[in-house]
């Protein structure tokens, strides 16, 4: 059960009543404007109460909201998108979508994790949890982009890599490890956007980037809160507690220097204005690409190395020397 969907129910009821009153005003020419205004004020007040300050757990559920824009919703607002399929070894993984795209007038390689928007599609897309074949497709497309000089734009939205028997047999570890390798070495600008869930290594495989953007209510975590609770306390039921401790919100991660930019969402979440939210994200991606494309390749790669080289929080006597003396 999604806690955000639950909280939205009362609001949707209010919305319906406001609509009814509006309809009555028009059809019966009765003036109910003061009633409508009162309901609208109440609506705004409740909306503010629910969404103006959300707990990490609520944000996790916002990131999982069934109506939240998915990778395909972002790709639909590119000027053009031509999907490429397959890992060239075994199969095409539908939980990864990628291909040539035009962002404004710029040719890019766009790649994202795709969950389903209903049960049927979720089964086909394995709830957005990629198999090794999916990661091998990612790697292939990233390599192609690097060779052709096309910037790479990725959309991250997964609970994590698929943890099944077949995935182990097909070397899930190696598939992710190779993706990481490819992205650290890609000779083109890479911009990654966490649009929903950023779960563990399965998300990292698409998000080693020169610039990491997160939506305001997306999350990115070393493991899903359920996974973390299961690992540490053998009790997935303690997920809410794990979410509170993991510092997984975009705001926390900006504080750690992991996230470069947070794109705001409308009150109530990105799905309240999907088209506007997608447009804002793509605007940010474009401006990041403009800046990154101005850098010579060697500088770009050096900056990417240093970006990750610096991430950590340990202490040592020689602290200053590390990272500046490569």
């Amino acid at each position, binding site marked *: 059960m999604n806690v955000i969907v639950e909280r939205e129910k009362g609001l949707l009821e209010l919305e319906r009543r406001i609509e009814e009153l509006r309809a009555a005003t028009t059809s019966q020419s009765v003036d109910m404007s003061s009633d409508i205004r009162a309901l609208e004020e109440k609506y705004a007040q409740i909306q503010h109460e629910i969404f103006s300050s959300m707990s990490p757990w609520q944000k996790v559920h916002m990131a999982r909201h069934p109506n939240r824009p998915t990778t395909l919703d972002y790709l639909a607002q590119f000027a053009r998108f031509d999907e490429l399929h397959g890992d060239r070894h075994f199969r095409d993984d539908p939980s990864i979508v990628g291909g040539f795209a035009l962002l404004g007038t710029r040719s890019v390689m766009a790649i994202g994790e795709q969950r389903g928007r209903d049960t049927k599609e979720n089964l086909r897309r394995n709830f957005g949890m990629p198999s090794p074949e999916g990661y091998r497709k990612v790697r292939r497309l990233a390599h192609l982009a690097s060779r052709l000089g096309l910037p790479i734009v990725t959309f991250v939205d997964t609970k994590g*890599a698929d*943890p*099944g*028997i077949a*995935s*182990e*047999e097909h*070397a*899930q*570890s*190696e598939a*992710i*490890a*190779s993706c*990481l*390798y490819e992205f*650290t*070495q890609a000779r083109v600008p890479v911009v990654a956007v966490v649009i929903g869930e950023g779960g*563990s*290594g399965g998300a*990292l*495989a698409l998000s*080693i980037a020169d610039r990491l953007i997160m939506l305001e209510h997306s999350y*990115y*975590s*070393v*493991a899903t809160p359920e*996974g*973390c609770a*299961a*690992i*540490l*306390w053998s009790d997935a039921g303690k997920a809410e*507690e794990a979410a509170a*401790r*993991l*510092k*997984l919100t975009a705001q926390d*991660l900006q504080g*750690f220097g*992991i996230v470069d930019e947070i794109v705001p969402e409308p009150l109530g979440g990105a799905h309240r204005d999907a088209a506007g939210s997608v447009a804002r994200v793509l605007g940010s991606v474009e401006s990041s690409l403009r800046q990154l494309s101005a850098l010579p390749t060697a500088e770009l790669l050096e900056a*990417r*190395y240093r970006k*990750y*080289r610096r*991430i*950590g*929080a*340990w*202490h*040592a*006597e*020689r602290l200053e020397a*590390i990272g500046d003396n*490569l």
Partner: protein
Amino acid sequence: MPTPEWLRRRRSKNQNDGAALWTRCVKCAEVLYRPDLAANLWVCTKCGYHFRMNAFDRISTIVDNDFVEIGNEVQSGDPLEWVDKKSYPAKLAADRENSQLGEGVVCGCGTLTGRDVALGVMDFHFRGGTMGTVVGERITMLLEEARKRRIPCIIFTASGGARMEEGMLALMQMAKTTAAVARFMDDGNLFVTVLTDPTSGGVSASFAFQSDVIVAEPKAMIGFAGRRVIEQTIRQKLPDQFQTAEFLLEKGHVDMVVDRHDLKAALGRILEYAAAEPVAAGSDR
């Protein structure tokens, strides 16, 4: 060559620990005399089970009695100010006491059958060998040193994955170590990993499987997702051999499964082959 200080300290601790003079084999339940077990490289004298090794014990079986540590001055912080049943600093302190290690990996340089080598050894006894910022930093420092000196690098993995108590900073160590691996390998240097029991999660999905040659110890459990997670997902028991080193060898994921007694010699031969045919700088991995 005289016994190095670190090894003497290590051994004296083992010898003074009277309570642990005997131990039981995890696999066949045979009662084993610890000094015999140590002399047999922590391999059960009855059934051949490979015990999980302490990092310094491991190092002493691999290097030619010389080893200079790198990065041991790097110590854990508490970036998330994590508290559950215990605080994270308290957990670290307990693990330091129990394992006699500063953190979950020991890195340094030495020689192996006469050749210079950079060696990293993870230790499951410290926080389950999990990778946090210190493990990531030490491994990165090791790879940077190996790259600077143009010497091969060997890393022994033993890890449950990324360390939860350091959150995203732990996950990002996969990115950091990968970047260091890529620079090291792209310069034409040899990278070898030895996967020991267990190797999973964020470590298996990063440097463990990025190397040129992947060696595994017999019966080691190696995989991305933990056994329990998979069983919960599919709601059925997995066969015993699933995710073992032998299973991975059959599936083509590792190059060789080598008994601990033959490991140093096997690594020595790999270094020798690589030295005879230097790989040109900048060539594709």
